[in-house]
């Protein structure tokens, strides 16, 4: 089968690109291993809600019209949102079609799937940034008696054995899961490395509103000082909950969660933690303070102080005097280790030499280092908002323009 463009993945990015290609009358097909919004449907925990408010949910020619603009979508709501979008834009999707390999062949791409093969001039990789849990190598040294689980498999605390849980990682995933597991009566110890702390609501507005208003989310990849570092910043400690509350380390400490340094290794049945806890907390506190100062300055500059709540400052992250560096997993009754240590994309099907030494696709703002090939939906692809649902809109518009002119050049 032939088409001008194959899009791999029918998540929000793939659908956004499909819409943009349809607008340009470019014939294409969207290949989806499962269903629309498959990862959101099958690879996320039960309580998860989007970290962005509903008013921000926007895709090309489509936006949220529900009654709760300040709320955060549950997974069923998001799935519904994306399924409706796929329908509205009449995306040419082939469901239950897993791409098994993609190779380049003289200016064309050959796409092999579980349901037939495709040949196309251009290819859009929209298969997601979170296909696999990333687990550090030290996991191999963990005592075998302890069960290990990743957020890809985790659904709710009921899955876990009774007893203590070591949650490794303090980004949005780690904090959200640490809280719900601890509340289920399984005492949580949280290993905290570098992290990003943010209040959910600041001066009466969602933090995402501020990031939007200040233009932070629009910042382009080619304007950023250190793009490699930028793309590796952990996701901020946020939760989308009906009470719009802030989830931070102090809230967990108040509930009885024990904070430890970054997990450094295992030795003789003991977990070893880094002595850097105080500093990673200080770094996050200071970085948050800088953002709040920037927001306050912007408010004053715009002369809108009277329209928003007064400035607020938050307590520094509380760190106990000498956080223990060792934990005897047996004595402390740790039954489970949850690796909230990030995610990686899965490009095992990609037989084109475009991966860097870290296994990520080499690209310039989504234009991949192979003619006619594009990437969507990864962190800071083209803008700070690229990995968000609403980030797909501008990225897909930009890249569809590039793709279209590439196809025109092929014709000529």
């Amino acid at each position, binding site marked *: 089968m032939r088409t001008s463009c194959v899009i791999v993945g029918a998540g929000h990015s793939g659908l956004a690109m499909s819409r943009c290609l349809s607008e340009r009358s470019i014939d294409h097909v969207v290949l989806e291993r499962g269903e629309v919004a498959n990862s959101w449907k099958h690879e996320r925990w039960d309580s998860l809600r989007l970290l962005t408010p509903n008013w921000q949910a926007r895709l090309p020619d489509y936006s949220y019209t529900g009654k709760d603009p300040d709320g955060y979508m549950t997974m069923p709501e998001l799935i519904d949102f994306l399924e409706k979008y796929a329908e509205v834009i009449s995306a040419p999707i082939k469901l239950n079609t897993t791409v098994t390999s993609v190779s380049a062949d003289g200016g064309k791409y050959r796409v092999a799937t579980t349901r037939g093969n495709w040949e196309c001039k251009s290819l859009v990789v929209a298969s997601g940034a979170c296909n696999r849990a990333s687990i550090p190598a030290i996991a191999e040294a963990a005592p075998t008696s302890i069960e290990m689980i990743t957020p890809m498999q985790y659904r709710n605390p009921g899955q876990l054995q009774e007893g203590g849980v070591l949650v490794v990682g303090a980004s949005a995933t780690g904090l959200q899961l640490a809280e719900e597991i601890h509340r289920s009566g399984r005492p949580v110890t949280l290993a905290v490395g*570098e992290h990003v702390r943010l209040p959910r609501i600041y001066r009466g507005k969602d933090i995402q509103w501020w990031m939007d208003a200040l233009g932070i989310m629009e910042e382009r990849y080619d*304007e950023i*000082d250190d793009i*490699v570092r930028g793309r590796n910043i952990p996701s901020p400690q946020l939760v989308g909950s009906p009470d719009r509350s802030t989830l931070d380390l102090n809230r967990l400490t108040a509930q009885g969660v024990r904070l430890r*340094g*970054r997990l*450094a*290794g295992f*030795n003789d049945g003991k977990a*070893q933690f*880094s*002595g*850097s806890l105080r*500093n*990673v907390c*200080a*770094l996050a506190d*200071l*970085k948050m*303070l*800088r953002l709040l100062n920037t927001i306050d300055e912007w408010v004053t500059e715009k002369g809108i102080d009277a329209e928003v709540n007064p400035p607020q400052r938050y307590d520094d992250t509380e760190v106990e005097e*000498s956080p223990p560096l060792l934990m005897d997993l047996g004595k402390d009754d740790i039954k489970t280790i949850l690796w909230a240590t990030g995610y990686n994309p899965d490009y095992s099907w990609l037989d084109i030499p475009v991966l860097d*030494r870290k296994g990520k696709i080499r690209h310039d703002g989504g234009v991949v280092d192979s003619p006619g090939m594009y990437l969507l939906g990864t962190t800071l692809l083209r803008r700070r908002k690229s990995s968000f649902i609403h980030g797909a809109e501008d990225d897909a518009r930009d890249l569809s323009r590039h793709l279209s002119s590439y196809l025109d050049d092929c014709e000529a």
Partner: protein
Amino acid sequence: MTTTSASVDNGVNVAALLEAREALSEAPEAAKFQWRATCKWVNGTHSNTTIQSFFGLGEEQSHRTEFSYDADHPELFASADIGATPVEMVLVGLASCLTAGIAAVAQHRGIQLKSVSATLEGGMDVQGILGIDSDVRNGFDGIKVHYDIDADASEDDIKALVAQSQKRSAVFDIVTNPTNVTVEVN
């Protein structure tokens, strides 16, 4: 956007460091360094360690001159006290690493330093090394570092400077995280 302004001079060539960083991210093999020390027992608890060669950028390198360090223990341990104790040398390493980092980060962030001084304290219960109580560890039970910094920056910016220096410090990493040590004989 490099924030280094021409008027700020902490004696750190940030441009050269950034260039090296760029070059090494293109050629990660060249980034593999090996640091060396050679130690000779002198007498009693007195030893002398010299430092000269190291490996980096894919080839053998050398300091401009050989550096020599005597280590010993104080008289109350019945030693001759010819040099600082090895654990004090760990403090030397930590202090100088963090301080160098502060200068470099300040330069990069366009902060002029006027004075930087640090006081370090490493607590230790010597029941550990003397084998009196096996529950007491040999090493420090904690290290406290206090910085006094006078610079053209706000208090929060100075705090951020010190925090960033810890984040990038090799010795801070060495003392806060475990390291495999392999000791062979003959």
